[in-house]
């Protein structure tokens, strides 16, 4: 069912030096800028080393959710998957491919598998690179660094779900489109909505009682957050209330009190753990994030099998 030659070529195309370099820079620049600003502002300059590591890890978790394993990996996935079929269609190389003795389902699946394997590698490398940048900027000692490294597998699992979700959307559109750009745009818009727009509208709509129902269902950012925090908790991570607050702002998973940001956390006020908002159980979020991409990928495959290539 998997055509080795197609798998290998697609895989190699994803690991062109240019792609690796551009992506690394794209990934690293925001991290470097953010960590530099935090450093200059003495953001994490707290009394005890333990607390500092706690803060650093917490903020890294936020960055991982939003950027490293979030926006960055989802855009890369959209880019890869959009090229799977649509690029061959716009370059007109697809004609020879589909007339070779290999089924279209096999072409699609070989390419999708190449995407999956590639994105696993990119996800892992991105996390290592990010931890490396973070650790170098804040000059972490080995023991503190190991705290980060030991949690990479959990960030990684989350990353895979993000990649699958946005990749499958692009792959599905790619299967019926002749334009690489058109296959990326819906994913990019959804990335913006999931990771940024909902930060703005979640609280307001929740206060107005308009969140539950359609909005809540569309809020895949919440599902990602729900899954993310559950995965990290399963990995033994416990966030201090401050971090819960920051994560809650981005994911909508914690009930963040309005006055929360005004609390002077540097004076050691111990706040109670924030309440976890269960719009959906993490299991439901998990199913949603598996079933939706699954259906989309299947649809993409069916469309591609039936499609006229001229």
């Amino acid at each position, binding site marked *: 069912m998997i*055509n080795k*030659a197609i798998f290998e070529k697609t895989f190699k195309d994803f690991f062109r030096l240019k792609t690796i370099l551009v992506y690394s820079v794209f990934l690293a620049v925001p991290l470097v800028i953010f960590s530099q600003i935090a450093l200059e502002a003495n953001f994490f300059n707290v009394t005890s080393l333990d607390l500092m590591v706690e803060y650093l890890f917490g903020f890294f978790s936020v960055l991982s959710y939003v950027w490293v394993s979030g926006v960055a990996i989802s855009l890369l996935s959209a880019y890869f998957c959009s090229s799977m079929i649509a690029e061959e269609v716009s370059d*007109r190389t697809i004609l020879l491919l589909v*007339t*070779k*003795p290999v089924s279209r389902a096999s072409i699609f699946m070989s390419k999708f598998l190449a995407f999956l394997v590639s994105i696993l590698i990119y996800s892992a490398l991105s996390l290592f690179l990010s931890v490396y940048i973070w650790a170098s900027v804040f000059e972490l000692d080995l023991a503190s660094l190991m705290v980060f490294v030991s949690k990479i597998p959990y960030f990684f699992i989350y990353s895979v779900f993000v990649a699958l979700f946005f990749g499958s959307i692009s792959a599905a559109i790619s299967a019926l489109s002749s334009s690489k750009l058109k296959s990326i745009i819906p994913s990019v818009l959804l990335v913006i909505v999931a990771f940024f727009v909902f930060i703005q509208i979640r609280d307001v709509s929740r206060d107005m009682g308009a969140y539950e129902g359609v909005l809540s269902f569309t809020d895949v950012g919440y599902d990602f957050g729900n899954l993310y925090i559950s995965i990290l908790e399963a990995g033994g991570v416990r966030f201090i209330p401050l971090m819960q607050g920051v994560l809650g702002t981005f994911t909508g998973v914690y009930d963040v009190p309005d006055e929360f940001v005004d609390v002077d956390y540097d004076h050691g006020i111990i706040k109670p753990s924030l309440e976890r908002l269960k719009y959906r159980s993490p299991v439901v979020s998990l199913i949603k994030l598996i079933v939706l991409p699954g259906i989309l990928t299947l649809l993409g495959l069916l469309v591609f099998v039936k499609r006229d290539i*001229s």
Partner: protein
Amino acid sequence: MEIAIETTELTKTFGLVKRLTAVNNLSMKIEKGTVHGFIGPNGAGKTTTIKMITGAISPTNGSAQVFGEEAGKNEAKARIGYSPEHPNFYSQSAFDFLVYNARICGVEPSEAKERANNLLDWMGLTDFKNRNARGFSAGMKQKLGLLQSLIHDPDVLILDEPTANLDPIGRFDVLTKIKDLAKKEGKTILVSSHILDELEKVVDHVTIINKGHTVLQSDIHSLKNKFASNKYIVETANNPAYLKRISKLGPAKLNPDGNIEVEVKNPERFKSAIFTMFKNDTKNLGGFYPLKMSLENIFMNVLGDKSDLKNNEQKTVSTLGEKNDK
């Protein structure tokens, strides 16, 4: 005789709103081991038919089969090598492209490399094997397109205008090779082309299609017999003026070249009639000869009444006539 390709009432309609039937109930049979010319005016539906046989597009109606296998299935595709009208390549070397295509077809890497080298050598492209195929000239692309169609050693070759972009030497070379593939390796070849005098030298069968359906299908030999010429061409100093007089010898008309084409029942009597007519007027007679039925002539003959070509030609003829009259 075993049938290599068969289409049965093959139909393709494009578009949901503005519907266009590119191929309309087209039935044809291509016998194993033949070189089959597939001809028809621009837009007749040749490429669309070919794409249905190769499985790139699916028929709206009817079916196409390759050695009894439904077109588009792997079993059918395995037996076809397809060289498209306008081949396109990845950004990789010609050699890598051929190896990749062989590997897709399940050929082992070492064998794939050997085949790629042999084919490049056979086509005289060895010097360009490491150059990026995207940078190839149109003719080189066409040659590489032909090579990739052979990479899995298929029984049937479907070549859509394989010589369209080639220089005269290249055309001769490629046509000779096509002929060899049929003669020496027993491949069945379906080849479309507009260069009919060249095509004529390699094909033993033809199918002429127009507006999506078959107009004529025959082997070349019977075709030539059928269209055996009882026509003569007469060239004079003023053809429109002589047309009337020559019409008395048999049904005559101006052909697309502006010469007089006349149907003749008794050639001997016709010849003496012409000699008599021009006896005192020899300088006005350019020449006269039996119309040779080339494939091109047959094509014109068959489609002359049906295709849109005719209107254009009539226009040319009549303007010519007006000029001459003045």
